[in-house]
């Protein structure tokens, strides 16, 4: 009964989305005020029905309703409650439902928190979001309903063991919140193009939504990387896998959009450029959805693919992207930007930032789609591996990082960098000297690239800190958006440091070890003491006891495991990781090689935590900037929402 209610709720949600499109877009076009009054109800109705559908599926998982095919395929009697709930989005159908729930939530948030917007404009924004919801709901209902029944089986096939991890339980919701959040900026852009009007207040409305979506996307990607590090990747943190790239491209485009929006808000420039970026960010999200769910690219993460789904998403992709780009081609030339700026000014730094960010997104897109292109035209089956990205991605990003450190100090319109130039040169020199000294002492040797990476990273950190420092010293007010920017940029510096050191000085070794033996790696002695059996709720396995010592002092005891999940019979590696501020030590248990011997992968990963700390700082910076005073609506108008957009949405 419950699954049928869920299915019905989704059909009703589809109807609500249809009403939203009809009354929102048509009402705004025909200027029927009474029609616009329906819009908030349709938004609320869509959310309630989607949430009901989602609740029904969750219920089916919690009570082990194995008559539902999706539950039987992705759950099991022994599966712990947390993973039964996470199992809802463990495969294609449920994760698509989660996607839609998040979209409905964003739509609801825009509807509830945008009281300050003109009615027609808001109706258009919500109408566009409704159109996206309508398309995806019809996709879900026609090709991938999670509520289909099957002859009940006594026990389910269990959730993919790799997904049975706390980080992965929250990674998809976070990532989707970011992914889907790009649709809000898209809807704002389309609404502006439909109106044929775009001004500073438009940018001010759009900015917080874009930033929040970006914060979610940042957190989602970072969580995914962290999960890959300790579950999937045997210690790698980024693989340039097609599916990772699919989330990274919208991130790069959103980052460019955030910066371009700043110019549009403050100076009324880059209008058509900003629109194009808003469209691109969402297009890249849709593209990602397509790549992950259609099976056109080879990836370790892709969902089990089904070409009929692929065709449906391709049609959606074509409709939304071609439609919005055509609208753009028609409207953008009429949205001229007024006013100029000097060659040395914050505007031109931000323009360069945008060009470089897009170039890096282009590199990722090229690498991701190249195998597909070659195959489509029968030019051979190729794969583009990390070496390509490691070289090509650096070309735009190194100058970008340098520009970040300088551009923060440039003023709008016409900057006089001579004044700050001297100080920045000193910063850079200090950063370079510090890097040389630190690398020489800590690791003995370094390459030019390592030095460059460290120096640039340190340079941004120092440069970012100097902005609030100067303001505080001169007793100027430090606005939250400036503070947020500095923290986010500092995060980028920390991230760059982490990546440089971790990539330059990591040590990895596959070895064969028997209990009682030990191996020396990077000055640490890894001793394999013993091996014993362990049992979990739905798995059995073995656990090794590894004692790590340095200079006869015990540093850590790790318990890497090899689990076999009872139902799917998949072995899974649970690595043992000793976390430290300056290094991680990593032991993964391979397989039994003989009587007593086991294969193991030992790793020394210096400063790897900086990668995620940096990403976290970027996200925190974004959150802080959203709470800036100017995004809060006049308190008199909405006394119930003192926190403003950002805070109120953060539920």
């Amino acid at each position, binding site marked *: 009964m419950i699954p049928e209610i869920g299915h019905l709720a989704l059909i009703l949600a589809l109807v609500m989305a249809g009403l939203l499109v009809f009354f929102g877009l048509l009402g705004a076009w025909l200027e029927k005020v009474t029609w616009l009054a329906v819009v908030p109800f349709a938004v609320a109705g869509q959310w309630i029905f989607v949430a009901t559908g989602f609740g029904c599926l969750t219920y089916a998982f919690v009570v082990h309703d194995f008559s539902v095919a999706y539950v039987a395929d992705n759950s099991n009697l022994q599966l712990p409650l947390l993973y039964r709930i996470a199992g809802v989005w463990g495969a294609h159908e449920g994760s698509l439902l989660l996607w839609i729930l998040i979209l409905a939530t964003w739509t609801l948030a825009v509807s509830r928190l945008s009281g300050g917007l003109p009615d027609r404009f808001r109706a258009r924004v919500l109408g566009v979001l409704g159109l996206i919801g309508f398309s995806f709901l019809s996709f879900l209902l026609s090709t991938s309903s999670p509520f289909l029944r099957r002859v009940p089986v006594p026990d389910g096939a269990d959730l993919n063991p790799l997904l049975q991890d706390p980080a992965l339980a929250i990674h998809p919701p976070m990532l989707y919140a970011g992914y889907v959040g790009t649709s809000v900026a898209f809807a704002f852009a389309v609404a502006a193009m439909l109106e044929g009007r775009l001004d500073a207040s438009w940018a001010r409305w759009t900015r917080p939504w874009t930033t929040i979506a970006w914060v979610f996307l940042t957190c989602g990607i970072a969580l995914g990387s962290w999960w890959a590090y300790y579950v999937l990747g045997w210690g790698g943190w980024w693989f340039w896998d097609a599916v990772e790239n699919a989330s990274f491209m919208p991130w790069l485009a959103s980052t460019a959009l955030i910066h371009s929006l700043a110019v549009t808000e403050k100076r009324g420039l880059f209008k058509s450029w900003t629109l194009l970026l808003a469209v691109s960010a969402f297009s890249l999200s849709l593209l990602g959805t397509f790549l992950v769910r259609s099976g056109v690219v080879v990836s370790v993460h892709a969902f089990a693919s089904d070409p009929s789904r692929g065709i449906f998403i391709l049609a959606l992709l074509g409709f939304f992207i071609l439609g919005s780009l055509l609208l753009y081609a028609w409207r953008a030339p009429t949205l001229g930007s007024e006013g100029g700026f*000097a060659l040395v000014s914050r505007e031109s730094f931000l323009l360069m930032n945008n*060009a470089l960010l897009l170039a890096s997104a282009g590199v990722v897109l090229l690498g991701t789609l*190249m195998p597909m292109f070659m195959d489509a035209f029968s030019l051979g089956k190729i794969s583009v591996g990390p070496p390509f990205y490691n070289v090509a991605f650096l070309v735009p990003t190194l100058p970008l990082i340098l520009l970040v450190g300088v551009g923060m100090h440039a003023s709008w319109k016409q900057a006089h960098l001579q004044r700050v130039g001297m100080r920045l040169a000193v910063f850079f020199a200090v950063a370079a000297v510090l890097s040389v000294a630190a690398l020489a002492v800590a690791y003995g040797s370094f390459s030019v690239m390592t030095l460059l990476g460290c120096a640039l990273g340190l340079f941004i950190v120092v440069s970012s800190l100097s902005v609030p420092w100067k303001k505080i010293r001169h007793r100027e007010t430090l606005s939250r958006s400036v503070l947020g920017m500095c923290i986010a940029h500092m995060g980028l510096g920390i991230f760059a440091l982490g990546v440089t050191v971790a990539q330059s000085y990591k040590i990895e070794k596959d070895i*064969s070890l028997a209990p009682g033996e030990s191996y020396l790696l990077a000055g640490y002695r890894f001793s394999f003491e013993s091996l014993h059996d362990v049992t979990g709720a739905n798995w059995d396995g073995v656990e090794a006891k590894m004692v790590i010592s340095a200079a006869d002092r015990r540093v850590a005891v790790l318990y890497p495991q090899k689990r076999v999940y009872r139902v799917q019979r998949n072995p899974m590696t649970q690595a043992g990781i000793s976390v430290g501020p300056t290094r991680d030590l990593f032991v993964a248990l391979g397989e039994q090689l003989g009587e007593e011997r086991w294969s193991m992968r030992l790793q020394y990963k210096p400063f790897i935590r900086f990668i995620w700390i940096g990403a976290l700082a970027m996200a925190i910076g974004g959150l802080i900037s959203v709470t800036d005073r100017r995004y809060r609506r006049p308190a008199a108008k909405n006394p119930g929402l003192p926190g403003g957009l950002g805070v109120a949405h953060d539920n």
Partner: protein
Amino acid sequence: MTPRRKRLMLVVGILLGVSLATLFATRALRENLSYFYDPTQVAQGEAPRGRSIRVGGMVTKGSVKRESGSLEVKFDVTDFRHTVTVSYRGVLPDLFREGQGIIAHGQLASDRVFVADEVLAKHDEKYMPPEVKQSLKKPMNEGATP
């Protein structure tokens, strides 16, 4: 300089930067592509030696051999027409299993032996790498043995 000239310079600068980046990217791409070959292509001598390539297929049942206690492992990869022996030193992925589709990355040492530096198996049970699927779909050769 007039504002118009300045803007022109900016645009030219950006264009220059972008084309330079494209140049680097395409060069990096050319150097870092690895082509996929199926065991039949390897057996027929189509795959180059001494270059990084990928070879994929199903791991033949009963072909995984390892010296007790050694990291060195050998197994056969087949597209059901021809077989290539893969030699690998290191930890195999969790989902590596006989009868499973895998892709190995490495270099060809002789017509029938492939030295892998990486072995990939997907984390989806029902998975078979698309390249493997496609190569399996080709018609069987005359006189192929089961």
